[in-house]
């Protein structure tokens, strides 16, 4: 490990299992990023990808993990200019062949080798199982709490869980009210984007489903204790690769199946679709969502960390007025 680096390994992709990183002796940190202040957007660069590259440079982390789930993030790994070691995890876009699945598994093993080279340890017998079990228990608590808490509180709890993997604390969180049930959908959010949750709630909306990449859509499937014991790596592949629906998968039918089902279960009446500037992968889904989902959709591309400007506020107010 480079001198002065922390024991943290930072990442942004939901396809990086933190259990795998932790079992190798590092502290996984899935980061909620501030928006990039650089000139990337003017170049056509995704704000999130640019922000993660900048974060990797400045974080002092032991390593930064990128993933190939979009071209922008894939190429952003080359933007890291300081001496922070980077690892690019190949996450196949296809999922209907055993080859693609096997490749993801092989990539996790390669990630493990990278972490060992970095000074980590090969997980001893039982360590991976124990780590999986611990994370899975935290996620179970998180999911249960998420059914009761306000969307903004749940988003904060998710962020905290991604940051340290510990069971979320939702004591004192304001319980969910009776506002118009809203689903959030889209790619990864930046820190400043969380204000959209509060704006919705302040205007008589209730976020009952956070299907952004930083939200509950990107949580892996629950892992049965026996699976974690029998073949823990296979359990991770199943929970992450087989389960997490995303816009970049080809075909991405599972995203629509999952989202339609969740919306129906939760009585969603409107969708707030959030995407970052120059995020082709998510932006291209807006017209399909409009075609497939028979409910109002508001597409927003909020600025990064500058908070909500009048443009966003007015649109959310108008959207919720329409639904009331």
């Amino acid at each position: 490990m480079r001198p002065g680096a922390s024991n943290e390994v930072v990442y942004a992709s939901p396809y990086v299992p933190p259990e795998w990183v932790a079992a190798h002796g590092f502290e996984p940190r899935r980061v909620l990023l501030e928006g990039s202040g650089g000139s990337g957007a003017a170049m056509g660069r995704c704000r999130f990808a640019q922000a993660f590259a900048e974060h990797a440079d400045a974080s002092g982390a032991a390593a930064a993990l990128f993933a190939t789930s979009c071209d922008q993030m894939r190429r952003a790994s080359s933007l890291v200019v300081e001496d922070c070691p980077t690892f690019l995890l190949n996450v196949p876009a296809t999922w209907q062949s055993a080859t693609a699945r096997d490749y993801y598994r092989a990539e996790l093993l390669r990630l493990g080798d990278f972490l060992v080279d970095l000074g980590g340890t090969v997980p001893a017998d039982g360590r991976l199982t124990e780590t999986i079990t611990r994370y899975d228990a935290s996620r179970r608590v998180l999911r249960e709490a998420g059914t009761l808490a306000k969307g903004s509180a749940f988003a904060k709890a998710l962020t905290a869980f991604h940051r340290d993997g510990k069971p979320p604390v939702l004591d004192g969180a304001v319980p969910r009210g009776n506002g118009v049930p809203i689903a959030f959908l889209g790619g990864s959010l930046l820190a400043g984007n969380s204000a959209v949750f509060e704006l919705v709630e302040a205007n008589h909306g209730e976020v009952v489903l956070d299907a952004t990449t930083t939200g509950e859509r990107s949580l892996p499937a629950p892992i049965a204790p026996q699976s974690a014991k029998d073949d823990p790596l296979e359990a991770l592949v199943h929970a992450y690769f087989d389960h997490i629906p995303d816009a970049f998968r080809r075909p991405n039918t599972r995203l629509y199946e999952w989202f339609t089902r969740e919306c129906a279960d939760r009585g969603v009446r409107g969708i707030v679709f959030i995407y970052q500037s120059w995020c082709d992968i998510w932006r291209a889904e807006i017209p399909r969502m409009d075609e497939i989902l028979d409910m109002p959709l508001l597409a927003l591309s909020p600025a990064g960390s500058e908070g909500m400007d009048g443009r966003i506020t007015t649109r959310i107010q108008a959207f919720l007025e329409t639904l009331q």
Partner: protein
Amino acid sequence: MKAAPARISLSAWEARYATLQAAGPHAATYDGPLGRHLVEGDHRLATLAFDNSVAALRLWNFLLTEEERLREARAAGKKLVGAMKDLGTVPVLAYAAPNVVAFYPDGAWWIPCIMEMSAGLLAVADRLGIDDSFCPVRAVLGAFETEAHFPIPDLLTCSVGATCDDFSVIAQRLESRGRHILWWEIPHRRTPRPAEDAVELADGVHVPQVQLELVQAELTRVRDAVSELAGITLDDALLAEGIRVANHVRRLLNTLRHAVFSAAFCPLPALELLIAEMLALHYCSDRAETIAVLEELQVEVDRRIAEGVGISPADTARVFWVNPVADLRAMNLLEDCGARLCGTDFMFCHALDELDETVPPLEALARAALADPMAGTSDSRALRVCRDARRWKAEAVVVSRIPGASHCATEGGRICETVETELGLPAIEIEVPPLCDGLEPALRTRLEALVETVMERRCQ
């Protein structure tokens, strides 16, 4: 009837064609005056400058009659494969079946340029929610919706993974409109670990064996689908023959490129060279004719070199060009500004590398797919640009950004930096939209400044 090499207008070609006809008709069945394509809607031809050789006329006519060939192939009972994104791999496989014709629907990205927006393809893409923040290849959506520019393929394939986001989402949008797609994975090409089994690709890059095996398995799925479509078994013998023919085409192109890039006087304009290179992708839907077209071009180029003549003066600035241009006019503009092509990477240089005939055919194709510059890092692409620019003594590099394309947000800058660091050459980025008329003064200024920089460096 030989004339001094020159770039001439469409109207000048009309007059020249009449003279040529008086001397006897050309053998190619698609022969005819270029002006007929203008009448059919290819309005951009009126603003382009063309090489004045008979070989170039044949090249243009061959290119502009592809739709007719595809419709004839279907009428003759052949099966059509629409290969998307991989640029140069799936067609080699598909053409190995005698009753299959493969083409790239991606090529529709030039329709807004060629037809000067009159086809309305981008407007259709707009209506489908894929607006001009995406790459102009979104014209593909319009072409499928209107069904007016090529017959709808019997089988659609699309490589995905380490590809640009724009094409990936456009293909997904296409599938959402009811076009079934066989997706196959092309992983991000990475450097092998020190003790890892690896293979060397044609361009000298090494890839891990595990990645080669993945792509080979994916291409096996594609082969099986083509076999089923064709009603025959695409065995190794057929595939090997397909590879042999592909290599013949690639050798012809490489000989042509080397001759053009290294001649004292530029013997073939940039625009015609771009089109000739495109023939490597899917043979413009006729393998045999592609070979004939390229052979005739080579004869013309050899003649010009032997006679010491070309389309520009000997001291013209030597430029390496990166990325295809959405507006073909930009290639004319390069020469209008006093430069010539001395090296290209139109995003499919892997389709010009010869396939390895000493390994099993599917492995050879997998190696070729992994050599795609888009599958690797921007830095590895930059290094190949440097290698080829050095080989052909380029004096400057132009990186042509594709509007909205995800890869262009990062790679252009990396390539320019690498060129400046590794070669000490000036490099610029320009952006070329489907019709660049409105930007032409700015583009011209930048290209002229680059040429002036080259000339100044010569004096130093």
